[in-house]
Structure formats: C-alpha cells, structure tokens
C-alpha cells in the first residue's frame, strides 16, 4: 500500500521489545509497519496484535499487555507525551463473558523517556511467578531491558513506588500500579500511574493515569509492579516548522478552552461544570441531576474560598490545563497538594456521589489515585451502590452508604483499593447483574460511563474504549441542541470516530482540533519527515476504529449490547433542561443507520481477523 509518493508504510519500522515475564527472555526486533495505522501507533498498532490472539479470559497468561507510544510522542510537537497500555480488559466484557480489547492513555514524561530509549513498543507476555519491575534503558549499542525483583515495592501506593524508584534511577520516569492493581483478583479497574516532571521535582503525588479498562490490574496479574524508562532527554532542536505547528496548537482555538481563565482561556475541563449546569445536565446522585443549584458549591470560585488552586502544565506543554488543588493555610499560604481537578473525577467523586465539599472531593480523588484505580469506573460503581441503598434502605448492600455520606464512601474507596470489596472492584455491570437491578447501572458494554449524561449522548453505544475519549459526541447535544436523527448519524459516523486518532498519534486531545485538520500532516512531516496526506491519515484512523468494533464482535458483543442504560429510555429525568430525544424508537432508527455505515467496514476487518485466527 502506498499512502504517498514518498512514504510507504513498510519503509517505516518500529522497535519492539518482547519480554516473557515467565522465562525472563527478552527480545528486540525491528519490525516494518504493515499499514499506516501501525505507523501512527498507539492502539492503531496494538489492536492489530491483540486481534491475532484468541483470548477467553483477561487473567490468562496468553493475554499480552502492550505498552507503546504514538508517532509524535517524544517529539517537539506540543503535547507529544502520550503513552498507551492495551490488553484484553478484566473490566469491560461482553454478555457472553469474553473480555474486550481495551486501551488506556496517559501523559506525563514516561512516554517520551521510553521513546528516547529507542523502544517504540513493549509486549509483556505471560506472567512472572514473583513480583518484578522492568527497567528499559538506552545502552551503548541500543536499548536494553532488565527484570528486577520488586518485593520492596509491594503494597506501596502509586506515588510511593515512583518515589522509591526515583532514588535509584536518575534520568528516568516511571509507570507503576498501586495496591489496587496488586489486588487484581478483587479489583478489575486498576490504573497505571505515570510520573510527571512536576511530581519528581516537587515530591507531590502529581501522577497522570492510564485508568480505563483495568490495565493496572493486568499488570498486577502479571506480577509487574512498575516499569522504569531511563534515557537522556532527546527532543530534537525545534525547527521553524515545528514552531509553526506548535503555534497552531496554542493559538488555533482548539486548546484555548483548557487554558487558565487568567490567561484568557476557559479554565480547563472544570468549566464543564458551570456550562452543563446551565442545563441541569451535570451528573448528580448516580447520573440523575436534581434540577437545583446545590452542586454550585463545587464551582471553581466557591472551591477557591477554601482551597488554593494552581494552573500547571505537563512537561514542555503550553496548555496549562491542570487545576491542582492545595490546602489553604490559615494565613492564606499554599499548603500540601491534594488532587488535580479534572471534570470527571471532580463530578464523579463529587456531585454524582452527593458530596459537595471541594476538600472532601479532592481527598477522595487523592485516595483513588494513590491506591491506583480508575477515577471514572470506581466512583460510577459506587454511585450505583449509593442509589441501590437509597432504594433499599431496609436491606442495603455493603456498608449501607448513601449519597453524601462521605465517611462511608471513603470506606468503600479504601477497602476496594485494598482488595477487600470485590463487589465494587469488579465494576458496575457485574455488580448490578448480581443484584438484578440494571436499569440505573451506568455503563455501556461493561465500561462505566464518564461524567456526561447518557441521555445527552447516544454516541456512547459506539465508543470502543473510554466513553467520551473514543467517540467525540459527549458534548455535542449541549453544544448544538440538535435532536435530528441524521445529525446524530453524521456526528457518530463522521466526526465522532476521529476522536480515536489522538490515541494513535501520541498527542493530547486537549489540542481540541478534529483529526482531519491540516495541522496533523504538517506535524508528522515536521517532526518525522514522513509525508502523510490528511485523507490517508483519516482513512487509517477510521480503519483503526472499525478494527476496534470488529474486535468487539470477535469477543461476542451482539447488537443489543450497543445501547444505553435502560432508565434513559424508560424513566427520563424531567429535571434536565434539554429535550428528551433518545426514545427507544429514535435509538432503533439511529442504530440501523449507524450500522449501515459501519457494517461493511467492520465485517471486512472481522473476516480479516478471523481469517488470521484460522490460519
């Protein structure tokens, strides 16, 4: 296949390190890319490897964990920091009980350090019989990898593991799991924490997280507690064209909304709170907004009365999107760091659990982060529990926690993270089925929903990984208010799909531009010399997305699983000031039209995948 006169996929190679954790065998191979998806990288490459495996159980030694980066990770292109973890998920599963292929992504500096060792991808095969960590480093004659005993790291929090390793490895960054991942049997939503410059310099627990899908639990199953990427910083000199591309990223309009308000920006994702509240569309009390102003206690100006809020950015990034909360001392000075407020953790540990005290919300986020769990799946599962207990006061589950009961909620978080509450750790799909009350279990296809009401986003049904990160329709209804069927078919099948391109190329979604923007081929050319047209890039992104759907089919997903929680259809919330348009009739017509567009591509790829299996 040729995607330009100058660059063919097979002329591009990537360096794979395969590590057999059972035998200790380590191999390095330089492999040619088979197609443009492999060139661009991330899940575009890892899902092709996963498609070659026949996996019935996530916790099985033949389920590989793929760690990789994107084409622009570690380059001078702003936000080129992303690292990806892919495997068959212990959390997301079909009704047939088969694990879904999943990926999750994170920033920090780990990905760049990995790329600078000369390694593009690591495949962890099998599992170690003892707890280990892996050191990936640049050697005189190429990259090196080494397995080391990790007993001294066992039981430590994500942050503690990273800080312990930092003492031993200069010029390095780290990926680590917490106690939750180590207790993988009970916790299927373990996250992987990646270190940041801010963290290593300050000593504060400012990690970034690859949270979705339980990739940290897969690491725990493999007895792989941490990964070290050690290399000298190797950003190439910034050329004028790289500078021009970065100018587009900073000034092109897409990232403005994430900049601090003082800088003329929108204030980061925290601003979603106030905007969605205008419609009473902020999830509250298990995704059932109350239609009042209670949650405004968590608006930035109100939290700022009791906490110190600082805007910070990732390494070499000009988008200062982090809203970092510190305690406020009596004299007004900045105290200890508590947590970073992104929209999801803020809402899902806050109003969605009935907690409206900023400091308490931040404390729950901090616990979740340090124990090493996904800050979407955990609170969304807990919100189901609280809802159940409100409905069954006479016979509640677990500790009987209800909305707003901070101490009981905190107990659920801690015990889950320590592996003591399998009911929570296995996620809301399994939990709700055990209790035979699924209407208000907020998941789609077994993965818990992020902080956008399902009644505002029919696109969730076709997300192939994190609900709002793998289908770009989460805020469409708030923005456009359009209830037209053809609008939604287009939103899902046309622009929505392109969201996943960010999880191939190594850039952060906070660039805020659609992946068919002319900036991306310019960025690829400026950073790597490769010439890729917008059309070819878009085609590759779509093909990677369709491969994700094909893998879902392979793992037994059937048509009726592409849906929303049934209370969306059967019990619409009258408090939401947006039209209730997702009726069963609407959704039936929508899925018919969406599958008309998707099926030919998905079936073609499924035949390819199954054909390879038979071979």
């Amino acid at each position: 296949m040729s995607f330009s006169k100058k660059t063919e996929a097979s002329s591009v190679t990537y360096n794979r390190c395969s590590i057999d954790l059972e035998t200790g065998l380590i191999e390095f191979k330089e492999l040619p890319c088979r197609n443009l998806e492999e060139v661009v990288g991330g899940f575009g490459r890892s899902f092709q490897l996963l498609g070659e495996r026949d996996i019935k159980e996530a916790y099985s030694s033949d389920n590989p964990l793929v760690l990789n980066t994107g084409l622009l990770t570690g380059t001078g292109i702003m936000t080129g920091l992303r690292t990806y973890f892919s495997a068959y998920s212990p959390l997301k599963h079909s009704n047939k009980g088969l694990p879904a292929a999943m990926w999750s992504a994170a920033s920090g500096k780990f990905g760049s350090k990995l790329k600078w060792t000369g390694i593009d991808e690591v495949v962890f095969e099998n599992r170690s019989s003892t707890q280990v960590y892996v050191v990936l480093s640049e050697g005189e004659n190429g990259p090196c990898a080494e397995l080391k005993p990790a007993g001294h790291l066992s039981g430590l929090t994500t942050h503690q593991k990273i800080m312990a390793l930092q003492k031993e490895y200069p010029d390095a960054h780290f990926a680590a799991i917490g106690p939750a991942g180590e207790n993988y049997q009970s916790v299927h939503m373990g996250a992987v924490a990646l270190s940041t410059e801010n963290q290593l310099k300050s000593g504060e627990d400012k990690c970034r997280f690859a949270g979705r899908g339980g990739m940290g639990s897969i690491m725990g199953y493999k007895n792989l507690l941490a990964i070290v990427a050690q290399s000298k910083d190797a950003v190439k000199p910034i050329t004028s064209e790289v500078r021009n591309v970065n100018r587009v990223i900073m000034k092109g309009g897409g990232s403005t909304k994430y900049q601090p308000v003082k800088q003329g920006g929108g204030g980061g994702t925290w601003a979603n709170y106030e905007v969605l509240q205008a419609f009473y569309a902020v999830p509250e009390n298990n995704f059932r907004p109350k239609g009042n102003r209670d949650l405004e206690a968590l608006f930035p100006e109100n939290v700022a009365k009791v906490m110190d809020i600082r805007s910070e950015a990732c390494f070499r990034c000009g988008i200062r999107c982090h809203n970092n909360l510190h305690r406020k001392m009596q004299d007004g000075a900045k105290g200890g760091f508590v947590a970073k407020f992104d929209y999801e953790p803020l809402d899902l540990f806050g109003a969605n659990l009935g907690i409206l005290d900023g400091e308490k919300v931040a404390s729950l986020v901090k616990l979740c982060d340090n124990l090493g769990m996904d800050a979407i799946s955990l609170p969304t599962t807990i919100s189901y529990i609280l809802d159940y207990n409100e409905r069954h006061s006479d016979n509640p589950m677990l500790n009987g926690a209800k909305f707003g009961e901070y101490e009981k909620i905190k107990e659920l978080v801690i015990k889950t993270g320590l592996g003591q509450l399998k009911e929570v750790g296995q996620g809301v799909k399994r939990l709700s089925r055990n209790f035979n009350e699924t209407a208000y279990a907020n998941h789609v296809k077994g993965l818990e929903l992020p902080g956008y009401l399902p009644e505002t986003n029919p696109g969730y049904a076709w997300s192939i990984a994190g609900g709002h990160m793998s289908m770009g329709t989460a805020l469409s209804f708030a923005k456009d208010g359009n209830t037209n069927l053809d609008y939604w078919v287009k939103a899902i099948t046309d622009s929505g799909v392109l969201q996943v391109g960010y999880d191939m190329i190594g850039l952060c979604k906070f660039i805020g531009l659609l992946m068919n923007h002319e900036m991306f081929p310019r960025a690829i050319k400026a950073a790597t010399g490769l010439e890729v047209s917008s059309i070819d890039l878009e085609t590759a992104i779509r093909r990677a997305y369709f491969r994700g759907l094909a893998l879902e089919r392979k793992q037994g997903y059937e048509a009726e699983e592409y849906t929303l929680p049934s209370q969306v259809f059967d019990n619409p919330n009258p408090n939401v000031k947006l039209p209730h348009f997702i009726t069963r009739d609407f959704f039936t017509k929508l899925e018919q039209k969406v599958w008309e567009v998707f099926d030919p591509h998905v079936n073609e790829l499924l035949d390819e995948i199954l054909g390879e299996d038979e071979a």
Partner: protein
Amino acid sequence: MEVNVKLFASFAVGRLKNEIKVYPCQTTVAEVVESIGIDKRELGIILVNDKHASLDYVLENGDTLSLLPLVGGG
C-alpha cells in the same frame, strides 16, 4: 428593547454575570456578542430563552440570552 444577558463560566470573568441590557429593536445575537467584547471563536453555546440559537438570531423584547464558552472533555 430589553434583553436579559447571562454570561457563564469564563465569559463572566471581568464582565457582567446576569444583567438586563437595552438594545435597539432587531438586534441580533452577534451584535450583542460583539458589544460585550466576546470573541465569536470562543463562543460555544448560545441559548435564547433556554433554547439553542445561532448568531444571526434576531432578539425580541424580554428575551433571555445566555452565552457559554466552548467546553471540552477530560
């Protein structure tokens, strides 16, 4: 005519939050946006009387115009 103008999130910083303002008849949303000093490229959501509207919408006496910035996921 009188229009109740409401600004949300970053739009309200250094500007009005919720104010009744007087405009000539036939004033459009675009003209109000310009008069307040908001960059149209930053406009995310326009609501008139709680319903989505566009920049060329012609306002009427007593309307409530809500202007919200672009937001993004994360």
